[in-house]
């Protein structure tokens, strides 16, 4: 029946048209922001929007392609952020001298204990002896590990704890931290995948959430690693400092020739550079994801998502594929996390909260349209734009409501006090509206 094929084809074309229109709409939103507020705001939003798009892409890979319900997004972003510190900060020589090597030895011991236990488990035949032996290895290993590690940690952390107190990084260019962030996150994902390969749906979700919380707890409390809650600020940047540009005569002249003052020109220029970097990464990842989705590999993944049992019976190694896509998606999240930390210029473990760094990303994916890479990216940019814009929108809304009320009315005061909370309320309303009109997301999976 050719009619069927025709309607499908038409559907595809309509999908493209819809995508083009929506992306144009997104661009228009940013343009309006730029024109009415300022181009600096628009670029700020755009940059983080691009990063959000990458985050959404990562989640979409896991959820939209393979149906893996990962709500530990936050943890992988944080691992990416950690990579920035480990790669780009200068090493703290004194801390290394104080106990760096011992610390490394302690860590190696810890890892060795786990490996030994796992090997033992694999080698010995099942039975009580095996359980006992493994427990002995683990407990013994744990105490040994603590005995080696604890003094080293104390030594490292006591080195000028107000400004360093940690081992520092490798002092390499920060751009290198992006792929490394991906690798670190991938490593984390590999471990999770090895530990919990059988978990599905909400049970996997809560496990990933738990692991994210554990990662954050480590980041917050292991000061020797990245200063814990004392934060690492002043990360090197991949782009010049605005103040340096403002101080450079050449730049000022060029800005003047364009009719811009140095401050505006330098801030816009720097944001533009960031934007280009982010856009490049986004495009590469988007291309890779798109190619993967539209290949036999993507087909296999969708089959697994649709029906694991049947896919397994059709010879697909579901566990391995899940692990693969979990790692890939997490790696993308790690890259995005590193990019975000680079943009912030600091690592602040205390700021990683599930609402912002997990659930908001999920909102992006679902609103954009899960299973559709372009949808995820669009959702990332749109929801980010909203997240930032709902604040003025909420204030404006409250202003509009209270304007006709007489001054001094208690309700007016009450409303104005609550104005800040219009932010989330507006976010909720817009979210509900968007989902009302496109319940399967803005760009649904075909």
């Amino acid at each position, binding site marked *: 029946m050719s009619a069927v094929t025709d309607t499908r084809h038409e559907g595809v074309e309509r999908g493209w048209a819809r995508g083009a229109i929506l992306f144009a709409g997104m661009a228009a939103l940013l343009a309006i922001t730029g024109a009415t507020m300022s181009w600096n705001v628009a670029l700020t939003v755009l940059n983080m929007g691009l990063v959000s798009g990458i985050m959404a892409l990562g989640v979409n890979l896991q959820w939209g392609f393979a149906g893996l319900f990962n709500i530990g997004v936050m943890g992988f972003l944080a691992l990416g952020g950690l990579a920035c510190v480990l790669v780009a900060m200068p090493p703290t020589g004194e801390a290394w001298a104080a106990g760096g090597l011992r610390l490394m030895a302690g860590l190696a011991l810890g890892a060795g204990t786990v490996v030994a236990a796992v090997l033992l488990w694999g080698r010995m035949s099942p039975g009580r002896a095996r359980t006992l032996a493994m427990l002995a290895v683990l407990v013994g290993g744990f105490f040994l590990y603590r005995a080696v590690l604890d003094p080293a940690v104390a030594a490292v952390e006591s080195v000028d704890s107000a400004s360093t107190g940690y081992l520092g990084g490798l002092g390499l260019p920060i751009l290198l931290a992006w792929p490394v962030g991906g690798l670190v996150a991938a490593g984390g994902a590999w471990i999770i995948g090895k530990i919990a390969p059988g978990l599905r749906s909400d049970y996997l979700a809560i496990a990933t959430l738990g692991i994210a919380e554990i990662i954050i707890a480590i980041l917050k409390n292991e000061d020797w690693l990245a200063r814990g809650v004392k934060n690492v600020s002043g990360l090197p940047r991949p782009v010049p400092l605005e103040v340096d540009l403002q101080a450079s005569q050449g730049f000022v002249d060029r800005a003047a020739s364009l009719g811009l003052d140095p401050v505006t020109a330098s801030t816009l220029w720097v944001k533009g550079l960031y934007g280009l970097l982010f856009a490049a990464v986004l495009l590469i990842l988007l291309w890779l994801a798109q190619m993967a989705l539209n290949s036999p590999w993507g087909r296999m993944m969708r089959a697994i998502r649709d029906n694991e049992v049947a896919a397994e019976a059709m010879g697909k190694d579901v566990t391995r594929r899940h692990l693969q896509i979990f790692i890939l998606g997490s790696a993308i999240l790690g890259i995005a996390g590193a990019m975000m930390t680079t943009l912030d210029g600091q690592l602040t473990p205390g700021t990683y909260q599930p609402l912002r760094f997990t659930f908001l990303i999920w909102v992006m994916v679902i609103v954009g349209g899960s299973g559709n890479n372009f949808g995820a990216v669009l959702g990332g940019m749109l929801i980010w734009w909203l997240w930032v814009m709902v604040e003025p929108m909420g204030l404006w809304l409250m202003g509009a409501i209270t304007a006709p009320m007489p001054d001094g009315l208690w309700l007016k005061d009450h409303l104005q006090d609550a104005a800040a909370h219009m932010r989330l*309320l507006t976010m909720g309303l817009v979210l509900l509206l968007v989902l009302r009109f496109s319940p399967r997301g803005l760009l649904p999976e075909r």
Partner: protein
Amino acid sequence: MELLNALVALANYVVIPAVAYGSQLALGALGVTLVYGILRFSNFAHGDTMAFGTTIAIFFTWAFQGLGVTLGPLPTALLALPLGIAGCALFVLGTDKVIYRFYRRQRAAPVILVIVSMGVMFVMNGVVRFMIGVDDQNFADGARFVIDARSFRDATGLDEPLVLRLPTLITLVTAAIAVALLFWFLNRTRTGKSMRAFSDNEDLALLSGINPERVVMVTWIIVAALATTAGVLYGLEKSFKPFVYFQLLLPIFASAIVGGLGNPVGAVVGGFVIAFSEVGITYAWKKVLEYLAPTEALEPSGLVQLLSTDYKFAVSFAILILVLLFRPTGLFKGQSV
């Protein structure tokens, strides 16, 4: 004596607080698990539903207190609870009518409903703060303690105190009653069974003459009742603050999931698992060991703490993951859509 002291210390600092916290989580988790079991989505707005119901109950509590109506030793809030439940039920039913029903009719995938519930969460978030503000509200009155530290010490002559708070006791009793009722309701009554049937196979439920709107309505009313009760009891024991109620969401979810989603007994057991692992694992055994050590020399020098409290969430999550490794759909074989 020393042994008694050790036991009392353990009870006072680990067992009773964990039981109290556990039953609070359990009540919250019952609501989450019910929405999941019947309506098939994880309701992110549950924390804020609790806050909303509690807010209304607090307003009525204040009104009663203003009028001088009290319950004697029991907190006045209990009197206001039914009104809070009613208000909350009205609100969630409204929410369902305006929002959720649309997606149900659309047969939207549950994950869409999850995100929709996040939208509802944001809105309720604003509404609650608009109504009662962001601050701590203390609305407890009546007796605070069943057994307080001083009278326990005086009565027993022990060094260690044992404290039992009235709200703790009420929460525990309520949680026990709630789970029994819910279990009975779902497994024994016609309406309850029809709700399970609806959750199992919506189309077939329809073909059996089950009215889906009624099922949904009953579900929401029960959820509102559970949420408000949980919120009020938590507020009585600790205090009410919207942000904390939002934060309660995570441990509540963890409880529901570790117990097995959709299973009321699982929710309760899950609540205790989470509470005990949070409170118990990081306990410093120093005090207990001091009482137990036969001679001074054997008393511990350090804190004898397995892990510092910094890691209490990490530990409770680690335990959760461990449980899931051995029981991939929770302790009580929960559902998995």
